[in-house]
Protein backbone atom coordinates (compact mmCIF):
# COMPACT_ATOMS: atom_id res chain seq x y z
CA UNK A 1 0.00 0.00 0.00
CA UNK A 2 1.20 3.49 -0.85
CA UNK A 3 2.90 5.23 2.14
CA UNK A 4 0.94 8.40 1.40
CA UNK A 5 -2.31 6.55 2.06
CA UNK A 6 -1.01 5.52 5.50
CA UNK A 7 0.09 9.04 6.27
CA UNK A 8 -3.33 10.36 5.35
CA UNK A 9 -5.00 7.72 7.52
CA UNK A 10 -2.78 8.69 10.45
CA UNK A 11 -3.71 12.35 9.96
CA UNK A 12 -7.39 11.40 9.87
CA UNK A 13 -7.05 9.42 13.11
CA UNK A 14 -5.82 12.56 14.88
CA UNK A 15 -8.28 14.79 13.09
CA UNK A 16 -11.13 12.57 14.26
CA UNK A 17 -10.17 13.34 17.87
CA UNK A 18 -9.26 17.00 17.47
CA UNK A 19 -11.71 18.43 14.95
CA UNK A 20 -14.01 15.57 13.94
CA UNK A 21 -14.36 14.09 10.47
CA UNK A 22 -16.73 14.66 7.61
CA UNK A 23 -18.86 11.69 6.55
CA UNK A 24 -16.60 11.14 3.54
CA UNK A 25 -13.44 11.20 5.65
CA UNK A 26 -14.97 8.83 8.17
CA UNK A 27 -15.90 6.32 5.49
CA UNK A 28 -12.44 6.61 3.97
CA UNK A 29 -10.76 6.03 7.32
CA UNK A 30 -12.98 3.11 8.27
CA UNK A 31 -12.34 1.45 4.92
CA UNK A 32 -8.59 1.88 5.37
CA UNK A 33 -8.54 0.63 8.95
CA UNK A 34 -10.33 -2.57 7.94
CA UNK A 35 -7.39 -3.55 5.83
CA UNK A 36 -4.43 -1.96 7.64
CA UNK A 37 -3.16 -3.40 10.92
CA UNK A 38 -0.53 -0.67 11.37
CA UNK A 39 -3.02 2.19 11.23
CA UNK A 40 -5.47 0.19 13.34
CA UNK A 41 -2.78 -0.04 16.01
CA UNK A 42 -2.22 3.72 15.82
CA UNK A 43 -5.95 4.35 16.21
CA UNK A 44 -6.05 2.03 19.21
CA UNK A 45 -3.05 3.73 20.84
CA UNK A 46 -4.62 7.14 20.33
CA UNK A 47 -7.87 5.99 21.87
CA UNK A 48 -6.13 4.43 24.87
CA UNK A 49 -3.90 7.45 25.46
CA UNK A 50 -6.89 9.75 25.49
CA UNK A 51 -8.82 7.42 27.76
CA UNK A 52 -5.94 7.44 30.26
CA UNK A 53 -5.68 11.23 29.98
CA UNK A 54 -9.40 11.71 30.54
CA UNK A 55 -9.31 9.39 33.54
CA UNK A 56 -6.51 11.39 35.20
CA UNK A 57 -8.17 12.70 38.35
CA UNK A 58 -6.30 15.16 40.56
CA UNK A 59 -6.81 14.93 44.30
CA UNK A 60 -8.93 17.78 45.54
CA UNK A 61 -8.62 19.28 49.00
CA UNK A 62 -12.17 19.98 50.18
CA UNK A 63 -10.85 22.55 52.68
CA UNK A 64 -9.85 24.62 49.67
CA UNK A 65 -13.53 25.17 48.90
CA UNK A 66 -14.19 26.28 52.46
CA UNK A 67 -11.24 28.70 52.43
CA UNK A 68 -12.25 30.07 49.04
CA UNK A 69 -15.83 30.67 50.14
CA UNK A 70 -14.62 32.52 53.21
CA UNK A 71 -12.34 34.72 51.11
CA UNK A 72 -15.11 35.42 48.62
CA UNK A 73 -17.47 36.45 51.46
CA UNK A 74 -14.85 38.76 52.96
CA UNK A 75 -14.12 40.34 49.57
CA UNK A 76 -17.85 40.75 48.85
CA UNK A 77 -18.19 42.59 52.17
CA UNK A 78 -15.20 44.82 51.36
CA UNK A 79 -16.64 45.65 47.93
CA UNK A 80 -20.03 46.57 49.45
CA UNK A 81 -18.38 48.82 52.04
CA UNK A 82 -16.14 50.45 49.49
CA UNK A 83 -19.12 51.08 47.18
CA UNK A 84 -20.97 52.78 50.05
CA UNK A 85 -17.92 54.95 50.78
CA UNK A 86 -17.59 55.85 47.12
CA UNK A 87 -21.27 56.80 46.98
CA UNK A 88 -20.83 59.08 50.01
CA UNK A 89 -17.80 60.63 48.36
CA UNK A 90 -19.71 61.36 45.17
CA UNK A 91 -22.57 62.93 47.08
CA UNK A 92 -20.22 65.16 49.06
CA UNK A 93 -18.32 66.12 45.88
CA UNK A 94 -21.57 67.07 44.14
CA UNK A 95 -22.78 69.07 47.14
CA UNK A 96 -19.45 70.82 47.45
CA UNK A 97 -19.49 71.70 43.74
CA UNK A 98 -23.04 73.11 43.99
CA UNK A 99 -22.12 75.12 47.10
CA UNK A 100 -18.98 76.34 45.36
CA UNK A 101 -20.96 77.60 42.39
CA UNK A 102 -23.64 79.20 44.59
CA UNK A 103 -21.11 80.86 46.90
CA UNK A 104 -18.76 82.04 44.12
CA UNK A 105 -20.40 85.52 43.72
CA UNK A 106 -20.28 86.09 47.49
CA UNK A 107 -16.66 84.99 47.67
CA UNK A 108 -15.83 87.19 44.71
CA UNK A 109 -17.32 90.21 46.51
CA UNK A 110 -15.53 89.27 49.70
CA UNK A 111 -12.15 89.06 47.98
CA UNK A 112 -12.85 92.29 46.10
CA UNK A 113 -13.65 94.05 49.37
CA UNK A 114 -10.50 92.73 51.08
CA UNK A 115 -8.46 93.74 48.00
CA UNK A 116 -9.76 97.31 48.24
CA UNK A 117 -9.28 97.51 52.01
CA UNK A 118 -5.69 96.27 51.80
CA UNK A 119 -5.00 98.23 48.62
CA UNK A 120 -3.97 95.09 46.74
CA UNK A 121 -3.69 95.02 42.99
CA UNK A 122 -6.57 93.38 41.09
CA UNK A 123 -4.33 90.47 39.94
CA UNK A 124 -3.45 89.58 43.54
CA UNK A 125 -6.96 89.37 44.96
CA UNK A 126 -8.29 87.59 41.85
CA UNK A 127 -5.49 85.02 42.20
CA UNK A 128 -6.42 84.68 45.89
CA UNK A 129 -10.04 84.11 44.94
CA UNK A 130 -9.11 81.49 42.30
CA UNK A 131 -6.87 79.59 44.74
CA UNK A 132 -9.51 79.63 47.49
CA UNK A 133 -12.12 78.45 45.02
CA UNK A 134 -10.15 75.48 43.65
CA UNK A 135 -8.32 74.55 46.89
CA UNK A 136 -10.99 72.13 48.25
CA UNK A 137 -11.11 70.24 44.93
CA UNK A 138 -7.30 70.04 44.74
CA UNK A 139 -7.05 68.77 48.32
CA UNK A 140 -9.80 66.18 47.71
CA UNK A 141 -8.19 64.98 44.46
CA UNK A 142 -4.78 64.70 46.14
CA UNK A 143 -6.32 62.72 49.00
CA UNK A 144 -8.06 60.30 46.62
CA UNK A 145 -4.87 59.84 44.58
CA UNK A 146 -2.88 59.18 47.75
CA UNK A 147 -5.46 56.60 48.96
CA UNK A 148 -5.44 54.84 45.60
CA UNK A 149 -1.66 54.71 45.49
CA UNK A 150 -1.60 53.33 49.03
CA UNK A 151 -4.19 50.68 48.10
CA UNK A 152 -2.22 49.68 45.00
CA UNK A 153 0.93 49.21 47.08
CA UNK A 154 -0.85 47.14 49.75
CA UNK A 155 -2.54 44.89 47.15
CA UNK A 156 0.84 43.89 45.64
Amino acid at each position, binding site marked *: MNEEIHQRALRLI*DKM*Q*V*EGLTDGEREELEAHLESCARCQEQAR*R*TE*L*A*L*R*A*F*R*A*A*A*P*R*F*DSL*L*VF*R*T*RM*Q*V*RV*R*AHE*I*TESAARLRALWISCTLSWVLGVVSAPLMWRGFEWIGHRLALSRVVWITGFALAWVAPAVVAAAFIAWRQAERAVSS*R
Partner: protein
Amino acid sequence: MNAVEQEAEELTGGLRRRDPTLIDYLIEQYRYRLFRYLLMLTGQRHEAEDLFQETWIRVLEKGHQYKQRWKFETWFFSIARHLAIDYRRRRQPESLDTLLQPMDGGRPLEVEDTASLSAFEQAFQGEEAVRVATALAHLPAAYREVLTLRFQEDLELEEIARVVDSPLSTVKSRLYRGLAMLREWLKDT
Protein backbone atom coordinates in the same frame (compact mmCIF):
# COMPACT_ATOMS: atom_id res chain seq x y z
CA MET B 1 -37.84 32.16 27.70
CA ASN B 2 -36.75 28.53 28.05
CA ALA B 3 -35.07 27.00 31.11
CA VAL B 4 -31.53 27.35 29.73
CA GLU B 5 -32.03 31.01 28.86
CA GLN B 6 -33.58 31.66 32.24
CA GLU B 7 -30.65 29.99 33.98
CA ALA B 8 -28.19 32.07 31.93
CA GLU B 9 -30.16 35.19 32.80
CA GLU B 10 -30.04 34.35 36.51
CA LEU B 11 -26.32 33.69 36.27
CA THR B 12 -25.65 37.02 34.56
CA GLY B 13 -27.89 38.88 37.02
CA GLY B 14 -26.30 37.21 40.04
CA LEU B 15 -22.80 37.95 38.81
CA ARG B 16 -23.72 41.58 38.15
CA ARG B 17 -25.12 41.88 41.69
CA ARG B 18 -22.03 40.12 43.08
CA ASP B 19 -24.27 37.66 44.85
CA PRO B 20 -22.05 35.60 47.22
CA THR B 21 -24.64 32.81 47.35
CA LEU B 22 -24.40 32.41 43.59
CA ILE B 23 -20.60 32.34 43.80
CA ASP B 24 -20.87 29.65 46.49
CA TYR B 25 -23.00 27.60 44.15
CA LEU B 26 -20.60 28.13 41.24
CA ILE B 27 -17.60 27.16 43.37
CA GLU B 28 -19.35 23.94 44.28
CA GLN B 29 -20.31 23.22 40.70
CA TYR B 30 -17.02 24.05 38.98
CA ARG B 31 -14.49 23.44 41.72
CA TYR B 32 -13.04 20.24 40.35
CA ARG B 33 -12.89 21.41 36.73
CA LEU B 34 -11.20 24.68 37.59
CA PHE B 35 -8.67 23.02 39.86
CA ARG B 36 -7.82 20.41 37.24
CA TYR B 37 -7.34 23.09 34.60
CA LEU B 38 -5.10 25.14 36.87
CA LEU B 39 -3.08 22.11 37.84
CA MET B 40 -2.57 21.19 34.20
CA LEU B 41 -1.66 24.75 33.36
CA THR B 42 0.82 25.37 36.17
CA GLY B 43 2.04 21.89 37.02
CA GLN B 44 2.26 23.01 40.66
CA ARG B 45 -0.31 22.00 43.24
CA HIS B 46 0.20 24.87 45.70
CA GLU B 47 0.11 27.36 42.86
CA ALA B 48 -3.07 25.83 41.48
CA GLU B 49 -4.64 26.16 44.95
CA ASP B 50 -3.66 29.83 45.27
CA LEU B 51 -4.95 30.57 41.79
CA PHE B 52 -8.17 28.67 42.50
CA GLN B 53 -8.96 31.12 45.30
CA GLU B 54 -7.88 34.16 43.32
CA THR B 55 -10.00 33.10 40.36
CA TRP B 56 -13.21 33.01 42.40
CA ILE B 57 -12.44 36.37 43.95
CA ARG B 58 -11.88 37.76 40.46
CA VAL B 59 -15.18 36.20 39.33
CA LEU B 60 -16.85 38.11 42.16
CA GLU B 61 -15.10 41.37 41.25
CA LYS B 62 -15.46 41.17 37.47
CA GLY B 63 -18.75 39.31 37.28
CA HIS B 64 -20.50 42.30 35.70
CA GLN B 65 -18.22 41.90 32.66
CA TYR B 66 -19.51 38.40 31.87
CA LYS B 67 -21.44 38.21 28.60
CA GLN B 68 -23.98 35.49 27.95
CA ARG B 69 -22.78 34.82 24.42
CA TRP B 70 -19.91 32.75 25.87
CA LYS B 71 -20.22 29.78 28.15
CA PHE B 72 -19.50 30.61 31.76
CA GLU B 73 -16.60 28.14 31.87
CA THR B 74 -14.99 29.74 28.81
CA TRP B 75 -15.03 33.06 30.63
CA PHE B 76 -13.70 31.81 33.93
CA PHE B 77 -11.00 29.60 32.41
CA SER B 78 -9.85 32.73 30.63
CA ILE B 79 -9.77 34.63 33.94
CA ALA B 80 -7.86 31.79 35.58
CA ARG B 81 -5.33 31.79 32.74
CA HIS B 82 -4.65 35.51 33.00
CA LEU B 83 -4.23 35.20 36.74
CA ALA B 84 -1.76 32.35 36.24
CA ILE B 85 0.33 34.53 33.94
CA ASP B 86 0.21 37.47 36.38
CA TYR B 87 1.06 35.16 39.26
CA ARG B 88 4.25 34.00 37.55
CA ARG B 89 5.18 37.55 36.70
CA ARG B 90 4.84 38.61 40.33
CA ARG B 91 6.72 35.62 41.69
CA GLN B 92 9.46 35.47 39.10
CA PRO B 93 9.84 38.85 37.46
CA GLU B 94 13.18 37.73 36.08
CA SER B 95 11.39 35.12 34.00
CA LEU B 96 9.42 37.70 32.06
CA ASP B 97 11.49 36.95 28.98
CA THR B 98 10.46 33.32 29.21
CA LEU B 99 6.83 34.33 29.54
CA LEU B 100 7.08 36.39 26.41
CA GLN B 101 8.71 33.71 24.31
CA PRO B 102 6.42 33.08 21.37
CA MET B 103 5.42 29.48 20.79
CA ASP B 104 4.43 28.08 17.43
CA GLY B 105 3.42 31.49 16.16
CA GLY B 106 0.75 31.90 18.81
CA ARG B 107 0.17 34.64 21.30
CA PRO B 108 3.42 35.35 23.09
CA LEU B 109 2.03 35.45 26.62
CA GLU B 110 2.27 31.98 28.06
CA VAL B 111 2.58 30.46 31.48
CA GLU B 112 6.15 29.47 32.03
CA ASP B 113 6.47 25.72 32.35
CA THR B 114 7.78 24.65 35.72
CA ALA B 115 5.91 21.36 35.95
CA SER B 116 7.71 18.50 37.58
CA LEU B 117 7.05 14.80 37.63
CA SER B 118 6.71 14.74 41.41
CA ALA B 119 4.13 17.54 41.32
CA PHE B 120 1.90 15.53 39.03
CA GLU B 121 2.54 12.28 40.88
CA GLN B 122 1.40 13.90 44.11
CA ALA B 123 -1.59 15.43 42.45
CA PHE B 124 -3.10 12.47 40.69
CA GLN B 125 -4.79 9.44 42.10
CA GLY B 126 -5.60 6.10 40.57
CA GLU B 127 -3.76 3.12 39.14
CA GLU B 128 -2.33 4.90 36.15
CA ALA B 129 -1.33 7.98 38.10
CA VAL B 130 2.42 7.53 37.68
CA ARG B 131 2.26 6.87 33.96
CA VAL B 132 -0.09 9.75 33.27
CA ALA B 133 1.97 11.98 35.59
CA THR B 134 5.11 11.07 33.63
CA ALA B 135 3.42 11.90 30.34
CA LEU B 136 2.06 15.21 31.64
CA ALA B 137 5.37 16.25 33.13
CA HIS B 138 6.95 15.84 29.70
CA LEU B 139 4.32 17.85 27.86
CA PRO B 140 4.82 21.61 27.56
CA ALA B 141 2.24 23.63 29.53
CA ALA B 142 0.76 25.10 26.34
CA TYR B 143 -0.04 21.57 25.07
CA ARG B 144 -1.31 20.30 28.42
CA GLU B 145 -3.61 23.28 28.56
CA VAL B 146 -5.31 22.77 25.19
CA LEU B 147 -5.50 18.99 25.68
CA THR B 148 -7.28 19.56 28.98
CA LEU B 149 -9.71 22.04 27.51
CA ARG B 150 -10.48 19.79 24.55
CA PHE B 151 -10.49 16.28 25.98
CA GLN B 152 -11.35 16.81 29.62
CA GLU B 153 -13.50 19.92 29.43
CA ASP B 154 -14.95 19.10 26.00
CA LEU B 155 -14.78 22.72 24.88
CA GLU B 156 -15.21 23.56 21.19
CA LEU B 157 -12.10 24.67 19.31
CA GLU B 158 -13.39 28.26 19.06
CA GLU B 159 -13.98 28.32 22.81
CA ILE B 160 -10.46 27.08 23.44
CA ALA B 161 -9.11 29.78 21.12
CA ARG B 162 -10.96 32.34 23.19
CA VAL B 163 -9.66 30.99 26.50
CA VAL B 164 -6.04 30.90 25.36
CA ASP B 165 -6.48 34.10 23.35
CA SER B 166 -4.82 32.59 20.29
CA PRO B 167 -5.85 31.99 16.68
CA LEU B 168 -7.75 28.82 15.88
CA SER B 169 -4.85 27.57 13.77
CA THR B 170 -2.53 27.80 16.79
CA VAL B 171 -4.98 25.89 18.95
CA LYS B 172 -5.26 23.11 16.36
CA SER B 173 -1.53 22.92 15.90
CA ARG B 174 -1.02 22.60 19.67
CA LEU B 175 -3.70 19.95 19.90
CA TYR B 176 -2.15 17.84 17.13
CA ARG B 177 1.34 18.13 18.58
CA GLY B 178 0.11 17.55 22.12
CA LEU B 179 -1.89 14.51 21.07
CA ALA B 180 1.12 13.04 19.29
CA MET B 181 3.31 13.56 22.37
CA LEU B 182 0.68 12.18 24.72
CA ARG B 183 0.26 9.07 22.56
CA GLU B 184 4.01 8.59 22.52
CA TRP B 185 4.32 8.80 26.31
CA LEU B 186 1.30 6.58 26.94
CA LYS B 187 1.92 4.11 24.15
CA ASP B 188 2.24 1.09 26.44
CA THR B 189 -1.15 1.64 28.07
